[in-house]
């Protein structure tokens, strides 16, 4: 297993020793350590929230990517060279993300799987673009990410606007509801999804967005927003922000006597959401999201989920880790096909030619770096607190 220790970066705090002399010594020491193996490993970075509020996502991403690394190494590596994973912890913070990306570049990785969270990814993609390193996001869906004209940025996850379209379709044709409230938290991702949903609803006859507002991430008391929302009398509340706020929001909304249907965006609803809201309150809530790993019926997916369960006891509880695993599949396929580890060659190939069957289905990319196609589903929280296919 070629796995380096977690490269965890704390803030501020990348530094030189008490004196310059000490730092000099360290630098010289670091410079003299060169791996002397004939079969130099191919080093691939994985940047994610290993610690911090999204640590669970980071942990599952590492687990998932590690499975693919082991699969590749078991069949003899790429071009006969083993894959070595370099892990960088961005703590789910924008600044840490920039620092981690700089560190990845300094580590000399061939390509990076980066990262979870749109704002986090946006900070890192700038640095990778400058350093000309292929970077593939796995949990970043904001539209803006692929609008900068970057040459080295791709993503295996889909774009918000497609989820917004799906939501509009869901409420109009399947649920047949008219008065819609949309709540986000001003983050790139949540606001992007909220705007996409509003835009998409504007084209549908008969529906009306009666309430559109933001809450503050990290807040615990939403009673003021909820009081205002109640006066608009919505039938559906679409909550596009993250689960810690979603659980509290739903419960306080029920406490205030609003019995509108609660639909979460793909970051709002997971096991912790149910725990925070309480099952009694949470059950019946819907979520629009990418298919869960356990709902994928491709042979690659079944094999992957079985292996994941064998190692960790339960399948990944959110869709994102599998996209990270697929990002590695993309990188590996590109290196194998081109016989090169040159970033420009790899980026050209991934953009124009790559077409593989990944764990999450067929993968190819548009010119922008977005993944072609999109698959969304609606899930519902059932009586037993499981998140199951809602059948829409």
């Amino acid at each position, binding site marked *: 297993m070629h796995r380096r220790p*977690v490269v*965890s970066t*704390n*803030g*501020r*705090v*990348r*530094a*030189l*020793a*008490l*004196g*310059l*002399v000490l*730092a*000099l010594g*360290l*630098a*010289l020491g*670091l*410079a003299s350590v060169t791996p002397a193996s004939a079969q130099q490993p191919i080093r691939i970075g994985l940047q994610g929230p290993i*610690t911090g509020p999204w640590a669970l996502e980071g942990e599952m991403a590492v687990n998932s990517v590690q499975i693919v690394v082991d699969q590749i190494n078991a069949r003899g590596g790429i071009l006969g060279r083993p894959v070595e994973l370099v892990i960088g912890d961005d703590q789910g*913070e*924008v*600044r840490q993300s*920039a*620092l981690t990306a*700089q*560190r990845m*570049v*300094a*580590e000399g990785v061939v390509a990076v799987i980066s990262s979870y969270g*749109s*704002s986090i990814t*946006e*900070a890192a993609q*700038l*640095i990778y673009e400058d350093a000309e390193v292929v970077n593939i996001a796995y949990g970043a869906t904001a539209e803006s990410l692929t609008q900068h004209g970057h040459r080295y940025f791709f993503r295996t996850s889909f774009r918000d606007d497609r989820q917004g379209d799906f939501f509009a379709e869901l409420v109009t044709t399947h649920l047949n509801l008219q008065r819609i409230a949309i709540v986000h*938290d*001003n*983050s*790139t991702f949540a*606001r992007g999804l909220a705007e996409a949903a509003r835009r998409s609803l504007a084209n549908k006859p008969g529906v009306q967005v009666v309430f559109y507002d933001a809450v*503050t*991430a990290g807040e615990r008391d939403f009673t003021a927003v909820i009081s205002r929302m109640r006066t608009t009398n919505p039938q559906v509340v679409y909550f596009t922000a993250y689960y810690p706020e979603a659980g509290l929001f739903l419960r306080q909304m029920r406490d205030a006597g609003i019995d509108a249907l609660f639909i979460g965006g793909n970051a709002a609803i997971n096991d912790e959401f149910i725990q925070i809201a309480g099952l009694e309150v949470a059950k019946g809530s819907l979520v629009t999201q990418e298919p869960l790993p356990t709902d994928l019926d491709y042979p690659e997916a079944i094999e992957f989920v079985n292996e994941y369960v064998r190692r960790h006891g339960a399948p990944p509880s959110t869709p994102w880790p599998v996209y990270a695993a697929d990002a590695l599949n993309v990188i590996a396929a590109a290196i194998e096909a081109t016989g090169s580890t040159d970033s420009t060659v790899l980026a050209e190939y991934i953009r124009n030619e790559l077409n593989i069957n990944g764990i999450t289905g067929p993968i190819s990319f548009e010119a922008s770096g977005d993944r072609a196609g999109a698959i969304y589903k609606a899930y519902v929280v059932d009586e037993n607190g499981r998140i199951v296919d809602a059948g829409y």
Partner: protein
Amino acid sequence: MNKPYLRWIVYAVLLAGLIAFPRVASRYWTDVAVFFGIYVILGLSLNLILGEVGLFNMGHAAFFAIGAYTTAILSTQYGVPLAWLFPLSGIVAGLFAYVVTRPIIHLRGDYLLIVTIGLNEIIRIALINNPWGLTGGPNGLLVLDRFTLFGWSARTPADFYYLTWGFIVLIVIALVRLQNSRIGRAWNYVREDEVAAAAMGIDVRWAKSLAFTLGAGLAGAAGTLYAAKIRIISPDSFTFSESVILFTIVVLGGLGSIPGVIVAAGALMVLPEIFRDFMEYRMLVFGAAMIVMMIFRPQGLWPSRRWVRELETETTPGSAGSPPKPGAAAPAARSDA
């Protein structure tokens, strides 16, 4: 260091080491040295306020934020070159500090502390709420321009290294001269005894205002460096915990001590690095280290010479600085309550 030539030799060696560093160190360590340098500038700027004048400012990140956001906004929206923004952000942050601290500058000790924390929070919340669409909300702003000076533009870590540390050398020279000037002595006087200082004809209000303005201005200039280097600035870079780190740097180094600030900034940045093997326990150990360092070196890692002289003349240990035994009739402490 009684022999003057010895001191110059030390300076020469330090300078040579400073210049040679990026040539021997890796890109990564050069980057680390850049961020270390930015913290040194911030520490020095807070030292003017907290160390020299003894004003409890625990919201210094607010001024840093003003500088960084001024840079990002003027650069992206109006295309102002970063090199001009370097002084401009300093001026904006300094003016801001002058205006907002004027009505509160008479507050004592802990009251000033909570007000500066409040100021930090107000700024952070304002940045998150994206007033007039200027600040980009929680995601912040991208800085796409490059720092360019006379046709030379900063791109590599080494470029930023020379930019940052060149600036540090200049401000250290300026600050040492300031310390030994009338202003510097007036500041220390105010720190030790406000009433006596006023009696000696020092305009206490003016002295405090000047320290806040200069300190904030320097932090604002550091904001430009930071924005140019990191290229994405967001509200979570300017939180209260950032202010706490800066506060700790000044106290840990020794109030009013320039070398102390540099050593403490180094220690605070390098400690978590050393503790990296502890992984999850890292910040736990870091907190414990803060306590231990205060217990064993309450005067700071490198106390200023003026401070040491004072300690030597005191007979009772511990009555250096403002309040001696709590509850005893120390005027500074009583008037806080």
